[in-house]
Each structure stands twice: as C-alpha cells, then as structure tokens.
C-alpha cells in the first residue's frame, strides 16, 4: 500500500485538463481581473460537476439550474475573496455551491418534498452512493471512478451517514433521528468513514 508522505500540499484530486488549457488558478486570476471569458471557460469546465452536486442536494432540475446560475454569479462577485493559499478553485467553488444548495433547501422548507423525491429516486438514481445498482452501466472518468471506488469500499451505514451529512447538511443528531441510530454510533460512523475516504484519497492522489 502506497502512503503519501506529503503533509503540506493541498489535498486534492482534480480532473486532468487538456494540454495547453489555462489552469483553474489562471482562470480565477482572470476572473478577479473581471474577464468574462474566463468565467465562461470555468463554467464550461465545471457546470456539470456543480449541477450534479446541487441536484444531489435539492433533487429538482429547474431549481438546480436557477441555483447554478446564482452560484456562478456569486463566483464572479466573490472571486476577489478567493485565495490560492487556502486551496484550489474547484474546492472553493464546491464549498460555495454546497452551502448555497443546502441554504436553498432549508429556506424553501423543502425537506419534506425532497424527502419524497429522494425516496422515489433512490431505486433509479445512478449517483446514489448507497445501493448503486447501475454503476457498471456508466462510463466513468478515471478520477471519478477512483473516487467512487474509495467511497464504495465503505460499509453502507458509513456511506449513508456521510451522504446525509454532506449532501443533506444534516447534523449528527438529525442523522441519528432519521436513521433511528444512537448518536454515538452516528459519530463513530462519520469519523471512521471520513478517515477511510481521506486516507484513500491521499493514496489516490499519487495514482492520478
């Protein structure tokens, strides 16, 4: 088993870019200088990933499109607050998108509706972490398939706890109530699962 020795390099598993394409950092710098074409390129590069994340939270196509537009507008407006010292552009954008998506879900008090949709979609949703029966049918990019491999290596209960915390914004207590599990067990599942993913991704970083 390979173990990464790096402790200072930002932990990241970004997708590969075409040769000669501007890096995400270069695009962010151009956006900070108010270059709309840079935002256009960043949009083309990551709208699919960010929309998938938003959809995973709110489960509504039209709302996800609206939110995606708002998030890229926020990226444009907040670009000056991005600092390369704090991490990579994709990480910053994902953090921003997740926060907005979870806020949106809470503001609209859509938990009940999303809950219904989630239950309806569970059987047919290809991107569910737990009980994903259609995985083989999907052609995955190298990066994504490797990340999925790490995540799918977790016991389903750990996957579920992380899924509810990350994509639904649930607290440990909310997860405990939803899954009818003792709070201490939820905490242990989250801690063990996140550590395994973190360690697995550190190993992956060397393979990508």
């Amino acid at each position, binding site marked *: 088993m390979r173990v990464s020795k790096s*402790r*200072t390099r*930002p*932990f*990241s*598993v*970004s*997708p590969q870019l075409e040769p000669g394409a501007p890096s995400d950092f270069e695009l962010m710098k151009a956006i900070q200088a108010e270059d*709309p074409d840079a*935002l*256009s390129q960043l*949009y*083309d590069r990551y*709208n*699919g*990933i*960010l*929309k*998938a*994340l938003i*959809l*995973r939270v709110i489960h509504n196509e039209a709302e*996800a*499109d609206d939110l*995606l*537009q708002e998030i*890229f*507008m926020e990226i*444009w407006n907040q670009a000056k607050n991005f600092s390369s010292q*704090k*991490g*990579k552009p*994709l*990480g910053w954008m*994902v*953090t921003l*998108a*997740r926060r907005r998506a*979870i806020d949106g879900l809470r503001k609209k008090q859509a938990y009940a509706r999303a809950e219904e949709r989630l239950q309806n979609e569970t059987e047919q949703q*290809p991107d569910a972490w737990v009980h994903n029966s259609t995985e083989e049918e*999907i052609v*995955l990019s190298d*990066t*994504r398939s490797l*990340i*999925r491999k790490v995540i799918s290596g977790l016991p389903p209960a750990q996957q579920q706890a992380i899924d509810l*915390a*990350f*994509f639904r*914004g649930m*607290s*440990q207590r909310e997860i405990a109530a939803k899954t009818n599990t003792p709070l201490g067990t939820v*905490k242990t599942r*989250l*801690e063990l699962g*996140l*550590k395994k*993913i*973190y360690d697995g*991704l550190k190993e992956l970083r060397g393979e990508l």
Partner: protein
Amino acid sequence: MNFKEFQNQSRLYVIGALEAEEFAEFEKARKKFGKKAEDYIGECYGLHEAFALSLRPAKSSTAIKDRLMAMVRARKEA
C-alpha cells in the same frame, strides 16, 4: 484534545457535522495547534472536491449560461 483527535474533528468540521457542544472544544484546539491545525483543515476541504467529483456530471441548459454571461457583462459595463 490531542492532534489525532483534532484531525478526526476537523473532518467532521469541514462537512458541517460537528455538534454545537463539540464546536467550542474544536475551536480551542484549533487555536492551540495554530498553523498546523489550519493546514490540516485546509487539506480536509479537499473532501468537498472529492465528493463532488464522485458524482456523474449533470447537463444544464445552454440558456442558463447565456443568461449568466449576459448578467456578468451587464454588471461589468454598469
């Protein structure tokens, strides 16, 4: 809290899963470990990126991008 426990808590922190009663203790340890703590939290945010990349990209309508770029250009010219 030792650094190993802080690392565990950091991973919960970045996904917003720290409970209120854990938060104060975490912030105390964060101050105690200083730069080492900040570096580790920064690394943990890589989990966000990984979780997003684990999903199959979704298609969005071209109208969204057209609207976005029109808004951006209008704001720039204003």
